[in-house]
Structures are given as C-alpha cells and as structure tokens.
C-alpha cells in the first residue's frame, strides 16, 4: 500500500516539476515598434508604460537624450530610441509611449513609436544575435522567432548604460 502511495506521490511530483520546467522555458516579453522593426524587452524589466508627458531638455548631452521628466516626484531621464538607433526622429503621435525600464537602481524612460503586445515565447524559439554583431557592444540579447515574424530582444542593462 505504502509503496503504491509512494509511486503516486512520485508521479505527482514528476508532473509538477515537469510543469515548472515548462513555465521556465517560456519568456515573457513586451513588444514595441521603433522605426520599421519590432523590438522587445523582458516584461519584468518594465516599471511602467505611460503616455507622453512634457519633459525638460538637459544641455551637454547627446541628442538621443531628450531630457528629464517627472514621474510622480522622481526625476527620470528620457531617451529617444529612434535616434539612439540612428533612425530619423518623427513627431510624437497618438500611439507614442514612454516605456520606463529599470535595472537595479538605474531607471530611464524610452520613447517608442507604438506598443504591439505582450509576447510569450518558448525559450527554444530564441536564437542568439546574428554573428555579424559585435558581442560586447551589442544591445541585442537575442532574436525570437514566432510563426511569421522575427522579434529582436534588447538588453535592458545595455540600454540603461550611460555611453557618453
């Protein structure tokens, strides 16, 4: 009897841990468009997403740093991803959003053209960044493949790293 019980318990254990493994294998991302491309960042690195509000220009900074804005009492830098990626800047539209990302104590807002969706991607569908990109300086963490599209996953720590 007790052996049987043990077996059942073992079995249950297996299925449970098996589920765990499955959950682990899926990564959750938030996708957004900058220029013509779809990018994404891990959902856990996003503090919040807000509609554009006014910001203050900060002198002596590269032009992709738009300035700083007030997020409920905190002064946060605002970075335009279009010019950060070397694309032409456009006017903010109805769909423009600020994505506030954080990595430890580093926080910054990023201007994106529009949001797409939250994406659940099995880990096996994520490939490494193309070889042509220099490993060290790359902002790309990997490339996710979903049925008909390719999603670039960005390194949040690289985005939040000051490089001037």
């Amino acid at each position: 009897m007790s052996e049987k019980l043990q077996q059942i318990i073992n079995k249950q254990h297996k299925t449970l841990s098996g589920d765990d493994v499955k959950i682990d294998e899926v990564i959750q991302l938030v996708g957004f468009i900058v220029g013509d491309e779809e990018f994404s960042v891990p959902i856990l690195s996003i503090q919040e997403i807000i509609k554009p509000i006014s910001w203050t220009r900060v002198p002596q900074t590269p032009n992709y740093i738009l300035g700083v804005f007030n997020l409920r009492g905190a002064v946060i830098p605002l970075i335009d991803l279009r010019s950060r990626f070397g694309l032409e800047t456009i006017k903010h539209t109805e769909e423009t959003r600020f994505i506030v990302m954080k990595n430890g104590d580093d926080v910054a807002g990023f201007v994106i053209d529009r949001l797409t969706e939250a994406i659940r991607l099995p880990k096996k569908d994520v490939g490494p960044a193309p070889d042509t990109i220099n490993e060290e300086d790359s902002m790309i963490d990997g490339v996710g493949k979903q049925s008909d599209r390719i999603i670039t996953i960005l390194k949040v720590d690289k985005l939040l790293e000051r490089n001037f």
Partner: protein
Amino acid sequence: MDEFQEILQDFLVESFELIEQLDQDLVELESRPDDLDLLNRIFRVAHTIKGASSFLNFDVLTHLTHHMENLLNMARHGDLVIDADVMDVILESIDLMKALLGRIRDCGEDSGLEVEPCVLRLDAVANGTAIPSSAPAVAPAPEPVPEPVVQNVSEEEADYSGMSEEEVEAEIERLIAVRQAEDAAKRANKAPSASSEEEPDYSGMSEEEVEAEIERLIAIRQAEDAAKRSNKAATNESEEKKPEPVASAPVPVSAPVVVAKPEPIAPKAAPAPRKVESKDEGEGRGGASAVEQTIRVDVKRLDHLMNLIGELVLGKNRLIKINDDVEERYEGEAFLEELNQVVSIVSLVTTDLQIAVMKTRMLPIGKVFNKFPRMIRDLSRELNKKIELEITGEETELDKSIVEEIGDPLVHIIRNSCDHGIETPEIRLAAGKEEMGTIQLKAYHEGNHIVIQIIDDGKGLDAEMLKLKSIEKGIITEKEADTMSEKEAFGLIFRPGFSTAAQVTSVSGRGVGMDVVKTNIEKLNGMIDIDSEVGRGTSMKLKIPLTLAIIQALLVGVQEEYYAIPLASVLETVRISKDEIYTVENRSVMRLRDEVLSLVHIGDIFEVERVFDNSEHAYVVVLGLAESKIGLIVDSLVGQEEIVIKSLGEYLKGIDGIAGATIRGDGGVTLIVDVAALMQMAKSVKSTVGQESAESKNRSGAKNSASDYCVMIVDDSKTDRTIMRKSIEPMGITIVEATDGVEALNILKQGDHNFDGMLIDIEMPRMDGYTLAAEIKKYNKYKNLALIAVTSRTGKADRMRGVESGMVEYITKPYSPEYLMSVVKRNIKFNEGL
C-alpha cells in the same frame, strides 16, 4: 556583549564631547593659570574618562589618565604652577588620550600606542616641581588597588582552564581573602563619613571625599569582575567533571558576595560622578534641567525626515500653483475662500515644519571653533610669534553637514593668517604695532546665510606683489594682471599652485591650502570676500547658506526654457539695454557701478536654440561664488521659489553646469544651475551676445509655383473659414485651417509648412487673435510672417490693439472675396507671373 557595546558607545560619545571642551579650556588655562573653576573642569574631564575607562577595562587609557589626573590635582591644590612647559606635557598627554580613544572607537582596544614616555614626563613634571608630601597622599594611594587587580585578572584568566580542583579551591580561598581585606579597607574608608553610611550624602562631601569614594567603588567593581570571572571559570570546569558536588560547593559561598554587592554599589557609583557633573553643568549653563532635555538621534533619521519634508515642500508648491489656477477660473465662487484658507494653512505649517526640522540638524559653530585656540597656541610657539585669538558668535548655529565641511577651510585660513599674516614680534614693534598679533574669528547670521569672518591685524595682502608672483609662476599672464582689480588680485591666493611664503614651512607654503578653501566653500554654495590693506591686516568673509537640501532659488527664463539659480549665489539682478554691453577681446563685459563685469549668455552655456527675437533689453543676474563674480544674461526673470534639490540620477550625473533638478509647482522639471561649474564654462564659451541667429534669413526659400505659398486660416467658425478659403482658393496657394489660437500655434511650431501669411479671427476660444499674434511675434523666425486680422470688430481701439500685437492688416467683416485676395496677395508678396 551588546550591552557592553552600548556602554562603550556612550563612553566614546561622552569622551569625545568632553575632550572638545577640554582643548579650549586648557588654552584658556594657560592665560589664567589660577582660575580654579577652569582647573576643576579640566580635572573632572580627566577624572571622568579615567573612571569610565577603568570600568571598561581599558588599562592603558586608565593608566595615562590617572597620571594626568594626578598632575592636574596637584595644580588644583596649588602645589604646581602651570607654565608653558607643564602645559606642553599636558597637551601632549591629551593628544595621546585622543589617539587612544580613536583606537578604541576604531578597533575596540586601547593597545598599540606607547604611553609610557608620556606618563614618565607627566610624573617628572609632577615630582620635579611638586611638594613631595602632598603628591603621594593623593596619587599613589588608590593606584595600587586597581593595578594589581587588573594584572591578576589577566594572569588568572589564562590559568583557570589548566588548574586542578585543588588549585581552583585555593584560588577561591585567596579571592575571598582579598575580598575580606577589601571589605576591611572599605570599612576603614567609610569611617570618616560614618554618618552618611546608609544614604550617602554626596553633596555634603568635599571633592576629595567624593573622589576617594569613586576610586573605592571602581576598585571594588574591578575586584568583583575578577572574582566573577574566576567563579565562572570554576563553575564551568566543575560542570565538565561532575554535575553537582564538591567543586560547586564553594561557589555559592562567594557567589552571594559577588551578586549581592553590585546591587547597592552600582547605583551608588552612578550618581556620584553625575552629581558632580551636573552641578558643574548647572553653573556653566545656568540650568541643570537642560541636561536632561536632550536626546541623541541617529543622523540617518534626520536625513530621512529632511527628505520627507522636501517632498512636502514640493507638494506645497504644487498646491499653491493649483490654487492660483482655480482662483483664476472660478473667480468669485464661495468655496474659493475656504480653499484659500486651507492652502495658506498648509503652506504655513509646511514652512514651520521645515524650519523646525532644519533646526534639529543645526549645531553651534563653536564645535568647529573650539579646536582653534589650541591650534593658535601651537602655531604661535612653533612660529615664534605672539598671537591672540578672539572668538565671537560661537553659539551661531548651522546645518550639521555644513559644520562638517567648514572645519578644513577654516584651519587653512587661520594657519595662513598666522603664517603669512601676523608678523614676528620684532617686526610688529618696528611697525609701531602691538607685540601681540590678534586674529578675530566671528560668526553671525545674515539673512539666510551664516557669515564667518577671519580678521587678522597682520601685514595685509599686497595686490601688486600677488600679481608679480602669479606672473612668475605662470598662473596669469601680464596682460591679465594689468586689467585685474585689487579684489581680483586678492583672489589669486586661491589659485592652485600659489604660495606667497618665501620658504615652505611645516605650516604653509605648499600651495594647496587656499585652493582647498575655495573648493570647499564653493561646494557649500558659499562666497568668499577678501578685504585687505597693506600693513593693517586682512579680513576674509565666508558667506555660507544655512542649509543644503532645500534652497531658495531664482528662476530665470531663456527662450522657452527655465533654469533655477541658487539664490545664495545671486548678488543682484540688473536690467540693461543692449548698448551697455561692450566687447573686449571677444568677451562681453559691462560696467556695473565702478566695476567691470564679464558677461555670459545662459543660452550660450546651455546650448539653447535661439528662436525668440532678441529684445532691446536683457536681464543680467550677477553671480558671486567664493571670490569670483560673473554676469549671466537671461531673457526673463521669473521669480524666487523654494526648491528641493533632486539628483538627475546615475544616467545623467556629472553634467557640466547642472547641479541637479527640481520639480516645479506645475509638475514640470527645472534644472538647477551649478554656479561654480558655470563660471568655469563661461571662460571657454564663445560669446554670441547681441548676434542675430542667421538661420531665419534662409528660411523663405525660392517660390517656384503658386502652391509653394502657404497661408493659414484661423477661425472658430466653420462658415467663416469656408468663406475665406473660397475667397483665396483661386490663387492656387496651399491653405491650412485651424480652429483657435492654440491649435494655430501648434501647427506653426510643428513646422510642416512654411507659412507666408495668416488670416486670424480675433474672437476665438482658448486663445484669441491678439494673444496669438503676440505669441507668434516672439519668435525670431516668424518676423516676416504676415498676420492679417479678419474680424467683425470695427472699433478704433480694436484696430490699435491689432497693430500693437503685430498684425499688418485689419479686415472687417463683411468683405468682398476680391478685396481679401488682393490684401493677401500684397502681403505675402504673391508673384502673379508664376
């Protein structure tokens, strides 16, 4: 162990406080060697530290302080005259004591420093000049008691583990014997004050008696500690061997003695020194109760409190702003009154709260000043000069963080005054001055600032000499020297690498000191003002804001941006016309009364795009920091506001010229100007003051077809817009419509079209035609944009207003389509030939 740590902390805090006072007292003592009060106070410090350290078993410290106490006691009884040599030894021993305390604080033990030579010197001084009979009477008597016991402790402790049972027993027996001997001694001691045995009347005792009592209590405590330890060891050992019997038997015998004793003794021991202390405090400050009313608070908590207050101030600013807006919109409504009241109460309380919290962080500057009498004394002996220090206003309070920063600069300035300022006695006498040089150290409040003034009556600064030296050292060029005012020349002493001392002494002359002064004062947003007269002396004035976290700022506007300048650095603001700005060697300058002030445009420093028209007038904010001055040209002055400094965060830190950011009443972020950095930047910025931006000239490109012309129609009525459109459409030009002033302005700013003309209705919601026109004319690049009013208002006053706001034509409704077209054509210079 925690309890011990707590006691140790208290001990250290108390000791350092006592020592701070000590230095000053000692120097005073030298000038008034027969001041018994002073002597008593000093004696008590040594005594208190000795007592406490022996409690905590810091043998080396106890040893040292004991000998100090000994010496001071002799002086107190008049058996020893304190002269400079004796003082040197005393001061040396106090330095040593400080070092020991420092070691205790850092590593928890008082070993590692050699005190013996100092102790020997102390003894030598004591014996050399003392009447032999009195010295041993007071000093050695108590000494043997603590010393051997302490030694016993260390010996015994090492041994116990190795002892056999018999040995342990023998040891316990011995301890009991010691204890009994002590008891006998105690009884003997008590005999003189027999009447006060039950409830000792300490106040009735003479000081010696109190001391003897304390000494005795300490000895007992130490003996007990030793006994307790030995007991513990014994118990442990016995327990290891067998649970209950033989060995444990003697333990209870001594245990009651040990346990019972401390109870009555400990409380006695505590009040005894306290009473003496508080009596003294009472005399000193005029109220013994004041001592009980203080509480020690961790600085972190105060910092946190200050941060919270900062947030509250921001909230208050915001509330005031909203209140103003609401007032405007709902004028005359009943609830406004109530809202007004609430807002003013909140803002009042916030301000009070802020002041109250600021005050909790305030420390008297005396904390810093206290170390200077000693420093002056040492310096004057070292330099063979006679210098007297006069301190006033040491009770002036300022923020703790500033007190910590101000010490170093003051040390440098005072050293400098001693070394370079005050002359040797011979020279002074020859110059007809008093032999004794005086340095005055003053502190006082002036508005939101504290002013610290250091005045010496030495030889003064020689501007010419300073200039020559600087040229020699390559700090400035000869050309610069020629244009330098006297004040600017004085400022040279703050340049790195500058030293006027002919030779480097241990005191100064290495050319780093005054540079440090400047950086430190700048860090505090302070100003330095030097005044000097050759042969008469030098006065240095440090002006420092009271607090750092929440500051008053002047908000200035440049084009469409705003910046906050710490008011502490603002000397004045002046309105000038462009003609008053001169250019000297590519730099803009202006005359301000009898001074020449160099100017820099804030827009040049912060790379602000010039979109607005330069008006005839400009505002100059005169900034002063440390000893330098500069005029900052801004477009407008917004006003004074209380701001809370927030950092820009890791990502944007360290940007030149920006000290941080603050959040304004409207929720927007305003950057705070770093005045020190701005002054540095001003040196390398190319001046563009008075130059027009060339950009606008190329804007109106060539027109090749009718559709290159672009006109905007601004009217809130759809019908009116359609009529206008129909009238000018035949021309084939591009037409854009807007429904009100705000929208029109936005379309204009977006810059999608290059407009040649605008047809503007006057009466519109949100922003009317006049305001729109005025707004547009602010921009440099729209100078040539033709604004045509199309309105049903026909009054002359309306026409006048139209012209004032920058309209070129005024068309009254109704009008014929042909008329409108011709007016538009004329104003946008429409080329029919296309």
